[in-house]
């Protein structure tokens, strides 16, 4: 018995791995299926050329789980670029998150099939990806007529695609789970633009930080920016210890340095202005090494290191997504000519006052970054490009079907605020539904309490997690803490989402009560507490 189960797991793992290998198939042809059992695999391509993969268990119960992968760069990255160099554009289908075998095994055990597309284009692609998914659902149903229910889920940009699918085509899906969901394109790229602009105007004015040229020239400019930003990040890392500003700093930056502004404070301010989390994979902004720095480190240093770690994680996507969307829309899309950065950090300047080195330093930095300083020129967008960007797919936040959200509280790329926005909107939606039910009762005398359609799973950070060596240096070689980094979920957490979707598609109701509490506790590092509330992306405070 044990042997069989082990073999089964190995088999699932192998199958999922197989699916992650691209198989060229003619567009819009019928799926090519291998007819194998217990798992039948099919591959094909939708009419737009997007390759897809399907896996259907022998005990298929009519439910299929459609997964949408997250953002993939749409240009190859030269190997010389640090951290992400050597990446090649791929449209390999991904029918479960990251090819996670535990997730696939669970779904197969429930008789649920899995399907996923690699999408026709990479980069910012919800418009085309939603169309691809609609076609893929139809293709699957035709291939497997027993299909009765579709559950959809996705990560990061795949979360946007999933939510968009549920908003535009609620009749196609019975439950959805946007995980570590990105916000709409403008709020997301405003966050990216704010941070890159700050890095440029303080630490290296040769960084373009947007407004890239069209076509190949713009791609080359984005490569150059990647190299420069990562170089600056390396210098900042050293500067946090030594106090030195990068030698590439602008005149504005050098004047702040001359005035005695610590570079760590400047970096933290940029992170706060953009809305980057102040907890990161290894820096909790709470812990300090034993000894003299026990209090000083979390008060004055750790938040800047968290911004450094988060900013480094997010920088590549910020640059490449900006370049991609500019390419799609025909011009610069980031505009901060009217952004009031002082207002942006009004509450945080007190919270992080020590790390920002006090009001005098904060005011000096904000003055240097204000519109009054010609040494910190603001970015000006192309109105036509902005209009085109706003015409790209945007989620309204309407919840039409049972929906599970899951996000890390300190996700640096798709901040938890993007999910909070849906939570807030759904609270208003539910209140309106309840009011309508009460009103309907007055004529029908039949009161039906609206069914809750939202389950929010917050992936929480530990109460403290920064580790220090015996010498008191922070350790950054350990795995990222839960609740930090991008889509940093465990298999158990992903399986919980899958279980919730399966239940909701079957009963129409999301898990709740004691059963949910037990499942959440077992999955670990999750909270459903309705009292949790996180800030929205900074964009929403400006508009």
């Amino acid at each position, binding site marked *: 018995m044990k042997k069989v189960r082990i073999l089964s797991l190995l088999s699932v793992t192998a199958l999922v791995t197989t699916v992650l290998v691209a198989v060229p198939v003619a567009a819009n042809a019928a799926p090519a299926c291998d007819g194998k059992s217990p798992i039948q695999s099919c591959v094909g391509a939708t009419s737009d050329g997007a390759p897809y993969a399907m896996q259907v268990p022998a005990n298929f119960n009519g439910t299929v789980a459609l997964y949408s992968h997250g953002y993939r760069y749409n240009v190859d990255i030269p190997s010389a670029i640090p951290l992400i160099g050597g990446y090649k554009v791929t449209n390999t289908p991904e029918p479960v998150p990251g090819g996670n075998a535990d997730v696939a095994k669970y779904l197969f055990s429930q008789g649920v099939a899995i399907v996923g597309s690699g999408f026709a284009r990479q980069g910012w692609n919800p418009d085309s990806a939603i169309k691809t998914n609609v076609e893929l659902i139809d293709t699957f149903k035709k291939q497997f007529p027993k299909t009765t229910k579709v559950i959809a889920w996705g990560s990061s940009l795949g979360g946007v695609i999933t939510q968009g699918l549920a908003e535009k085509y609620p009749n196609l899906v019975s439950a959805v789970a946007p995980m570590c969901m990105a916000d709409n394109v403008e709020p997301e790229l405003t966050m990216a633009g704010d941070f890159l602009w700050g890095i440029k105007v303080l630490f290296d004015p040769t960084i373009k930080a947007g407004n890239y040229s069209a076509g190949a020239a713009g791609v080359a400019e984005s490569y150059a920016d990647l190299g420069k930003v990562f170089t600056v990040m390396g210098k900042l890392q050293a500067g946090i210890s030594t106090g030195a500003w990068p030698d590439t700093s602008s005149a504005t930056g050098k004047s702040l340095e001359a005035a005695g502004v610590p570079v760590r404070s400047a970096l933290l301010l940029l992170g706060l202005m953009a809305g980057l989390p102040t907890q990161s994979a290894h820096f909790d902004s709470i812990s300090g090494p034993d000894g003299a720095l026990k209090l000083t480190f979390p008060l004055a240093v750790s938040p800047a290191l968290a911004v450094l770690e988060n900013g480094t994680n997010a920088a590549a996507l910020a640059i490449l997504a900006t370049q991609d969307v500019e390419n799609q829309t025909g011009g610069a899309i980031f505009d901060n000519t009217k952004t009031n950065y002082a207002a942006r950090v009004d509450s945080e300047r007190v919270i992080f006052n020590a790390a920002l080195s006090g009001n005098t330093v904060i005011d000096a930095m904000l003055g240097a970054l204000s519109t009054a300083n010609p040494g910190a020129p603001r970015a000006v967008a192309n109105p036509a490009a902005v209009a085109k960007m706003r015409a790209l797919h945007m989620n309204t936040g309407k919840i039409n079907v049972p929906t599970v959200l899951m996000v890390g509280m300190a996700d640096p790329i798709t901040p938890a605020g993007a999910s909070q926005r849906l939570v807030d909107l759904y609270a208003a939606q539910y209140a309106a539904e309840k009011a309508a039910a009460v009103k309907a009762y007055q004529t029908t005398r*039949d009161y039906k309490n609206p069914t809750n359609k939202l389950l929010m799973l917050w992936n929480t950070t530990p109460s403290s997690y920064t580790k220090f060596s015996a010498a008191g240096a922070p350790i950054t070689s350990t795995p990222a803490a839960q609740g930090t980094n991008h889509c940093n979920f465990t298999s158990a957490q992903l399986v919980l989402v899958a279980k919730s979707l399966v239940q909701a598609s079957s009963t129409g109701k999301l898990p709740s009560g004691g059963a949910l509490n037990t499942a959440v506790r077992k999955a670990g590092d999750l909270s459903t507490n309705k009292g949790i509330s996180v800030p929205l992306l900074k964009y929403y405070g400006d508009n």
Partner: protein
Amino acid sequence: MKAMNRRKLITVSAVLAAVSLAVTAVPAQAAEVGVTSSEIKLGMTLPMTGTASLGYNKIPGAAKAYFDYLNANGGINGRKVTLVVKDDRYVPTEAVAKTNELILKDKVMALLAPLGTANNKAVAASVNPARRGVPVLFVNTGFSGFADTKKYPTTYTVLPSYIMEAKIMGQYIKDNFAGKKIGLLYQDDDFGTDALAGFKTAGVNFAVKVPYASGSQGAAAAAGWITKFKAAEADVVILFGVSSATSAMLGVAAQLKYAPQWMLGSVGGDATTIKLTGVPAGVLYNAIGFSPVPATTDMKDEYVKFFSDIYAKAVPGSAFDLNVLLGMNTAFMTAQALKAAGQNPTRKSLMAAIDSKGSTFANSALVPAAYSKTSHVGLTGYWVGKYSPTGDLAPVGGTYVTYTTDSGAGAVVKSTYVRPAMPAKGLPN
């Protein structure tokens, strides 16, 4: 007959449906979070460990000493008051995490006396107790902004604001140090911003102002501060910072034999705390200090005597100092608020009780509180004292002369406030 039965059934069904709706639409009165038939649970965050904890870490013990006394005498309508204390080490991000724990895990009814301007602001921004309807009682900071009922609708201050304190200091300077060169050391955050606003209103012109960033205070920094005060030839130096800044300054000043007329703000002016850092008591001699409550050595004062006796039994061997007195005073006021909140207190009734009766709560302060339906302002003034050779603050001239003012442009006036007498046995009526 059958038809009648069907009609009756329909009628009954309709009634049941209506009842069902009523039950759904109007939930049954649930017990308040943190309140059971036998307990009222409150939560507190403050630095209990680390360099910032000195002195402050006695506050929970002081508050618990009073609550234990209260509980031993029947509690609040039979419910004992318990206090859950979390150490935030004076780190705002940790205060956020610990406050979340208090609200979400410990499920306290209210937050009590959370300490620190930055920490309370961090909690307000990130945890948002107001949105959750959680009362934040008697915050342990004098930042005037927390009295803004629109921004912090569930927050109540208790300490006089830093603006009030600076205005009263300014008045004292005008009356006693006219023509002297005045220097100011202040914390470069909202704490200091309040002070600057108060001094500006009072019309104080400084020969030199020295800001320090929170967390940067220490002996090395203090040496630099002294250089600046010496260069400006300051006759009077006001230390408007936290205890660790005051201690660093006085300690280094003693070594360098720098001895201007010191004037200490109430936050950093607790002699017991300063002496614990190794600063000789003699350095404090003749320094000017300010306090809203009686001198902690004034055993003729019925409140001081009462609290001192309870504390001595609860925490034997621990000095009765300003932090202890303020901690017990806050607990005493809280007990009265809970009692006034009704037989089954709720978060709303607790806040309503302070709004309507808070200004009449008995407490040790020698200055009035300004609670009302439109004001969450606590105490509104100070008396002025000088430190003795042993470091004890005593009123100038031997009798308390109290001054009261507001956080705006109002004048500083001598207070005519008559403090309520201690209730029988020190228990809420």
